[in-house]
């Protein structure tokens, strides 16, 4: 009898679909995967499966479950729990599942504010009665339901136990293949493993650094002709490299775009955004250390949205997690 095929399951929570595409980006290797594994479900995008069918699977019957996207409503929470129960190994796939990702930035607002903007204030919305999604609606005797939209965004491991973390937005084909290969070969990484480098991104970046690291003016990438050889920080452009894990092989940087930090912090750093802001502030100024409060403020003001810049992919896992 042929060896029993591995069973894989994919689910997307609060994400953008980029991770689905990323999996497809392993191209014909996907055929190798299908050779040894069955994709039990890939909801909701690639393969049809009803939640009921997934819920009825025996617990632990899926070898590896991949969850991408963050958790920000009751449906996602429910499915995260289902996926957890059904999977022997649960992988938090992509920045959103690992640390909230871009949707995680919604933690600087709350449900009420988000609804007000989305269902009322945007230029293209005409909703004078301010009708917003309700969890239960009685349509003439028919009860219609919608998932509950949460006040804040969670990373996957705030909801369920996670075995393997795969940061990046989205994970590169190479890293995806590393994980799949590991699973197929039975060489499963230990619990809590992060599929990434241990070092900082700078260790994968070949740009030249100046002797004296100083920032006297901050540019956004489009405001300056970027030198391809020199460190972005030396050019006054914020690059999250020093506060970010290696593993992506500096793909953005090689395309002359500064790092935005989607790999998250290294294992000994506990607040990626705070650490980066701290580092940038340390190299503010010219030769003299002493700067007036006004000078420091005026440099900080050149960073348009500090929170969004420094916590772009990481807010729900940062120390403050959300707006107070």
């Amino acid at each position, binding site marked *: 009898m042929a060896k029993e095929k591995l069973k894989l399951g994919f689910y997307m929570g609060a994400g953008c679909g980029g991770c689905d595409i990323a999996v497809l980006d392993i191209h014909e290797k996907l055929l190798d995967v299908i050779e040894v594994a069955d994709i039990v479900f890939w909801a909701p995008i690639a393969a049809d499966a009803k939640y009921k069918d997934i819920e009825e699977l025996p617990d632990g019957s899926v070898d590896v479950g991949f969850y991408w996207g963050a958790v920000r409503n009751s449906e996602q929470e429910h499915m995260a729990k289902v996926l957890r129960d059904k999977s022997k190994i649960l992988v938090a796939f992509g920045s959103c599942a690992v640390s909230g990702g871009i949707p995680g930035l919604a933690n600087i607002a709350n449900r009420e504010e988000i609804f007000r903007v989305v269902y009322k204030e945007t230029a293209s919305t005409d909703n004078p009665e301010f009708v917003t999604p309700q969890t239960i609606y009685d349509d003439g005797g028919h009860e219609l339901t919608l998932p509950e939209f949460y006040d804040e965004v969670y990373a996957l491991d705030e909801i369920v136990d996670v075995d393997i973390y795969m940061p990046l937005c989205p994970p590169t084909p190479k890293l995806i293949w590393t994980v799949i290969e590991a699973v197929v070969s039975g060489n499963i990484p230990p619990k809590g493993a992060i599929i990434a480098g241990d*070092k*900082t991104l700078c260790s994968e970046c070949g740009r030249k650094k100046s002797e004296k690291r100083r920032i006297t003016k901050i540019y956004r990438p489009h405001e300056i002709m970027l030198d391809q050889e020199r460190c972005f920080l030396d050019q006054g452009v914020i690059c999250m490299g020093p506060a970010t894990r290696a593993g992506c092989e500096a793909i953005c940087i090689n395309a002359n775009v500064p790092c935005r930090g989607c790999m998250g912090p290294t294992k*000994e*750093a506990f607040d990626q955004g705070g*650490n980066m802001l701290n580092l940038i*502030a340390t190299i503010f100024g010219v030769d003299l*250390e002493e700067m007036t409060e006004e000078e420091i403020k005026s440099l*900080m003001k050149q960073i348009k949205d500090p929170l969004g810049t420094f916590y772009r992919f990481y807010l729900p896992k940062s120390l403050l997690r959300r707006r107070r």
Partner: protein
Amino acid sequence: MKVIILKVFVCTCRDTINLPKDLNFGDGIDVEKFSNLCSDDGIKRVAEVVEKGEKVVIAGCSPRIADRYFGEFNPEYVNIREQVAHIGHSPEKINSLINGAIQKLRNSEDIEEMKFEIKERSVLVIGGGVAGLEAARQIANSGIKVYLIEKKPFLGGVVGTLDRLYPKGTPNSHNLYSLINDIAKNENIEVITNSELEKVGGEFGNYNVLIRVRGNVIEDCDLCGRCEEVCPVEVEDHGLMRKAIYYMPTYPDNYGIDFDSCTKCGKCLDVCNKLSLGEKERILNVGAIVVATGLKQYDVEKVKGYGYKKLRNVFTHWDFERKFASGEINPGKVVIIHCAGSRDDNHLAYCSRICCFLGLKEAKLIKDVSPETDVTVCYIDMRSYGVFDELYETLRRNHGVKFINGRPAEILENGNKLKVRTEDILLGKPIELDADCVILSTGFVPDAETFEKLNIKCNGEFPTAYVNSILSDDSNPHGVYICGSAAFPKGVSETISEARDIAMSIVNLLNNDSIKLKTPIARINGKICGAIDCRICVDTCPYGAVYLNEDGEVGVNESICMGCGICTATCASGANQLYGFDDRGILAQVEATINEGDIAAFLCKWSSYNAADNIAYKGLNYPENVKIMRIPCTGRIDAQTILKAFSSGAKSVLIAGCPPDACHYNTGNFKARKRVIALREMLGQFNIDPERLRIEWIGNQEAERLVRILNEMNK
């Protein structure tokens, strides 16, 4: 996982500290209570526990005092006397403070004891001027071998070229010749002239130094002078012309070659077969290094209006002294200009401290030799302080020297003479002075090349931040001492006393077989920071202790790391950790100490922490919810720590350290300030009022101000 055994010693300071009813910190943490832990029995008990490899928390009086008894054990101190009992706070507060200390210890790496063998009981003294000579004499007299290297062919330095010393006009031979003779006859001193430092490796107790030696010392030179006759190279040496090979009446007693101007034509070799133009390298192994490289005159040619080197008879004070003393000139009317290029943002922004005396000294020299000469001094402020003011008064009252308050704008040629245009501030109008000769009393710059080779950061300026006379003694990295005018311009008497101080320190250092240090040291985690990483921490170290090694990786020189943590707080990846004040340790301490509504106060141990103690001594008080955490420097506190305090429930966070420009570690407080203000700009986005985060500079006597600030933050 590593098992960390912890013991908590609680001292009630002769039963003056009320303890909480329940002192229980969970899983197997023993608590031992003493009423006087500083007794011999108490100290012995702590030593026993530490000996077994256990970590200890000591709760009792302020670490200012407790460190006297327990410093060597590296405990985590909890100040329950000055910061709980004496200010009438509830004993229950003790639990959260001790808990914080326990968590900090649990999550910190061990501070390992480092042992530096003193392998070389010898000293390198760089520079053969008064500073180097005196230091060498004192060190050698205590039986320690000294290598004295001098880049010129003769000893003597600046003083050796001059005629007299201020304030009395003492001929320099009063002290220089006897000093040089002491050096020359001392068997513990090897003088190596015409030699320069090339490279330094190793650490204190065991430096290996590469020096380059040019030419040779002729033991049996008969001073026939033929070499000087045939030498075709003439150079100006501080106002006097001489050949590239010359004799100077100091040491060694032979003709020597000035290799900076020698063209190596070889004519001298034709008349003397003892001479050599060769170069060789030598390696010296020493335990400590004295940098006594002295100073240089500011290049006053840059002050365009004064026409130095363009106008005849415009001299610097040194040039003038040499020309005048040798009888080359004898002017009838002299104008001396003080602050020539000093206290001027376009030139030297600072006061060089000794040039007022030097200008006055030249005036005295002129008047002593030629009383009929008319001397006028133009000055901005007369900075002849203390006993030296006598010189100014003597010249003014007894010698008829005229003093004009004003800085001359320009010197013009006026036939054979000179015309000095200046303002007389007291008369309130511009005036012109005729002169045969103008003396520019210039300021000074250091001979900075050596500093670079020793990795002492000073950007070509005087290494004021590095020098222990400016800050407290423990802010000077061990083993390298800067002596005399190399540190900042000094007179001869000050230089001599400093050289003696330094000699004393070095003798104390080298009289040990080894030095044990058990202090927090920054270390780089090579698993996180690799060969081509960001390197930003390298430049933040005030001591040059963080460096790039041969593989391009960031390393820390343990022997000069002072444990401030500025580099650790800089690192965004957690690779750089100050052991004993690790990120994990501090974050755990904050979490365990801070409850909802508390005020987290990170107080620098050199300043504001003592102010907090003073609050108790002065009978003042602050809100009970203030939780003080003692830090090595405000520069150790990073955004992560502050955010942790807020996320643990703190309603306000205070970071307080030494006054601006007075950071114990030079720049820690400025870096902290940049970080805190930058973070405040982002806090609004988290809906935290930026006013809830403050950074303040608080000296140790400013208890009242600290109380006021803490009360404001509690509102």
